[in-house]
C-alpha cells in the first residue's frame, strides 16, 4: 500500500489498557501515538476503587513503588443486607499489598507520565471520529482536524467503543449484558475514616466492602453495592443490571440513596459530604459474546473488548494486561511487516495463554447464572440468614431444637421446591465451572 505513515502504531484511548499498549510499543523501539479524547487522562473514567499490584508491575515494573495511591486495600467484607442489619464475612491481611485505592484522575495521570518518559507521543483533547480503511486494512484514524496514518491501530476506547461498532466487530449491546454503575465520592476527615474503619494512619490498609441486597421494595434486581476507603474520601456505589433497571422503571440513583439510608451504611458515611457523583457501564458480554479482537491493521483490547470479571471486581488488571499483549502483537506485526489477521492473531494466542481468556472462559456462564437467581441472592437468602441468626442470638424462651426445625420447615415452605432446585442447580453449575475451568 502506498501510504505515508505518520507513526508505527496509533493507540486510541488513554485508559489503563491504551497506556499499557502504547508503553509496550515504545519500549520495543517503535513510534507510537496515544490519543485521548478528554482534556485530562482518566477524566472520563470511573471504577469501584482499586487497581491491582500484580498487573501494574507487569506493565510498569518497579515504578509501582512510586504509585501515588491513597490507601492499600487489604480488608474485604462480603455483606448480605437485610432490612435491619446484615450478615458479614471479612477477610483481612494487614500486610498484603495486592490492591491500591487511587482516583482515576491521578492513576491515569501517573501512567501517562511514565509512558511519555518512555517515548510515547501523548495527544490529549483529540477525538477519533473514524478509522481509515484502505484495501480492507485499518491504516489510520480521522479526527475532526486531520487524518493520521499508522499500519497498526490499537482500539482501547472503553466500554462503549463506538469504533468497535463502526468496524462491525460486535453487535449492538443488549441491556441484559450491561451493568450500570453509579457512585458517590464522599468526603470525610482522614482521621474519621481511620477510626471508623479501624485503619492505620500510614495508609497501609484500607477496606473494600461488597454488599448483596439491601433494597426493600425491589426483590428481583440483580445488583451489588460497594464501598472503598480512600485517604479522605469514601467511594460508595452500586451496580445493577441494565435490563432489570429498565424492567422495574428504576433509576440507579434511587438505589444509591436507598443503600445510603440502610442502617449498616448510615454510620459509615455519617457527616460526609458528597464531592462527586459518577456513572459508568460495565460490560458483561464476557467469553460468550466476545467481539472480533483482530482485523487487518487493528486490535481491540480492554473494556472495549469486554474484558472484565465482575464477580471478582476485576477490570483494571484485564485492561492493563490485554493492552500490554496488544502492544506485543503490534511489535510482532511491525517486525514482520505484515498486518494481516494472520500475524496480528498472535494477540489472541497470547490472550489465550494469559489469565484473561482463561478466566473469561471459566466465568462464561457464572454471572448470568447468578443473574438468573437474583431474587435468591439479593432477597431470599439474606432474609433467611437473618431468620437463622435471630434464632442463634435472640436467647428467647423457646427450645433451640424446635426453632431450628421450624426454620428448616419454613426454609422449604417459603420457597417452592422448584425454586430451591433451581438455586441448587445454578450454584452447583457455578462451582462446576470454577473447578472445570482453564
Amino acid at each position, binding site marked *: 500500500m502506498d501510504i505515508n505513515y505518520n507513526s508505527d502504531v496509533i493507540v486510541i484511548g488513554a485508559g489503563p489498557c491504551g497506556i499499557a499498549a502504547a508503553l509496550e510499543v515504545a519500549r520495543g523501539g517503535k513510534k507510537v501515538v496515544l490519543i485521548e479524547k478528554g482534556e485530562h487522562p482518566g477524566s472520563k473514567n470511573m471504577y469501584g476503587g482499586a487497581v491491582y499490584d500484580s498487573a501494574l508491575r507487569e506493565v510498569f515494573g518497579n515504578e509501582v513503588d512510586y504509585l501515588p495511591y491513597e490507601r492499600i486495600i487489604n480488608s474485604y467484607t462480603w455483606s448480605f443486607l437485610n432490612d435491619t442489619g446484615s450478615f458479614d464475612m471479612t477477610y483481612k491481611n494487614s500486610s498484603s499489598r495486592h490492591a491500591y485505592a487511587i482516583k482515576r484522575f491521578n492513576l491515569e495521570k501517573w501512567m501517562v507520565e511514565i509512558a511519555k518518559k518512555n517515548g510515547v507521543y501523548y495527544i490529549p483533547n483529540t477525538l477519533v471520529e473514524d478509522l481509515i480503511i484502505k484495501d480492507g486494512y485499518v491504516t489510520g484514524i480521522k479526527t475532526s482536524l486531520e487524518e493520521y496514518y499508522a499500519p497498526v491501530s490499537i482500539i482501547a476506547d472503553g466500554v462503549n467503543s463506538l469504533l468497535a461498532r463502526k468496524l462491525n466487530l460486535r453487535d449492538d449491546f443488549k441491556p441484559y449484558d450491561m451493568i*450500570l454503575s453509579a457512585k458517590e465520592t464522599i468526603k470525610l476527615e482522614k482521621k474519621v475514616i481511620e477510626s471508623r474503619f479501624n485503619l492505620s494512619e500510614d495508609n497501609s490498609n484500607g477496606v473494600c466492602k461488597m454488599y448483596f441486597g439491601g433494597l426493600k421494595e425491589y426483590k428481583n434486581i440483580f445488583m451489588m453495592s460497594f464501598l472503598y476507603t480512600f485517604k479522605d474520601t469514601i467511594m460508595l456505589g452500586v451496580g445493577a443490571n441494565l435490563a432489570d433497571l429498565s424492567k422495574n422503571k428504576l433509576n440507579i440513583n434511587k438505589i444509591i440513596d436507598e443503600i445510603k439510608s440502610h442502617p449498616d451504611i448510615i454510620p459509615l458515611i455519617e457527616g460526609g459530604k458528597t464531592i462527586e457523583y*459518577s456513572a459508568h457501564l460495565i460490560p458483561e458480554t464476557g467469553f460468550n459474546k466476545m467481539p472480533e479482537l483482530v482485523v487487518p491493521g487493528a486490535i481491540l483490547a480492554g473494556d472495549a473488548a469486554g474484558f472484565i470479571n465482575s464477580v471478582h471486581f476485576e477490570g483494571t488488571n484485564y485492561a492493563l494486561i490485554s493492552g500490554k499483549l496488544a502492544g506485543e502483537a503490534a511489535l510482532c506485526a511491525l517486525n514482520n511487516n505484515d498486518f494481516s489477521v494472520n500475524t496480528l492473531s498472535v494477540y489472541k494466542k497470547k490472550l489465550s495463554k494469559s489469565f484473561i481468556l482463561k478466566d473469561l472462559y471459566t466465568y462464561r456462564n457464572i454471572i448470568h447464572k447468578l443473574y438468573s437467581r437474583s431474587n435468591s441472592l439479593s432477597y431470599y437468602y439474606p432474609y433467611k440468614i437473618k431468620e437463622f441468626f435471630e434464632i442463634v442470638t435472640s436467647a428467647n424462651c423457646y427450645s433451640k431444637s424446635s426453632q431450628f426445625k421450624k426454620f428448616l420447615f419454613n426454609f422449604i415452605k417459603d420457597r417452592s421446591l422448584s425454586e430451591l432446585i433451581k438455586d441448587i442447580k445454578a450454584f452447583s453449575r457455578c462451582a462446576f465451572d470454577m473447578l472445570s475451568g482453564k
Partner: protein
Amino acid sequence: MEKKDNKKSIQDKLSTIKYNCASETHLKVDEKKCLKCSEKTCTFICPADVYELEPETGCIIVRYENCLECGACKIACPKKAISWEYPQAGYGVIFKNS
C-alpha cells in the same frame, strides 16, 4: 412524589460535577420513534436525568449538558432512537474524584 425526590437528589449530585460544556449536543433522539415509544425508558434510566418528556407535545427534551457519558440510554432505549456520540474533544464531563 417519589420520582420528584429522585430528580431532586440527582440534581443535587450533578451540582458536584465539573463539566466543560460543549455548545452542541452529542445526544440526539429520533422524535418520530419517540412518539411511538410507550416505554420512554430514557426518562427514568439515565443516572443524570438528561431526558425529560414534554407532556404537551410528547417530545423528549435532552439536557445533554448533564450527561455523564455512560451510554446506558442508548443501550436501554427499546426503539434504538438515541444517537449517542462522545462530546467534542475536550468537552463534557470531567471526573476528578472518581
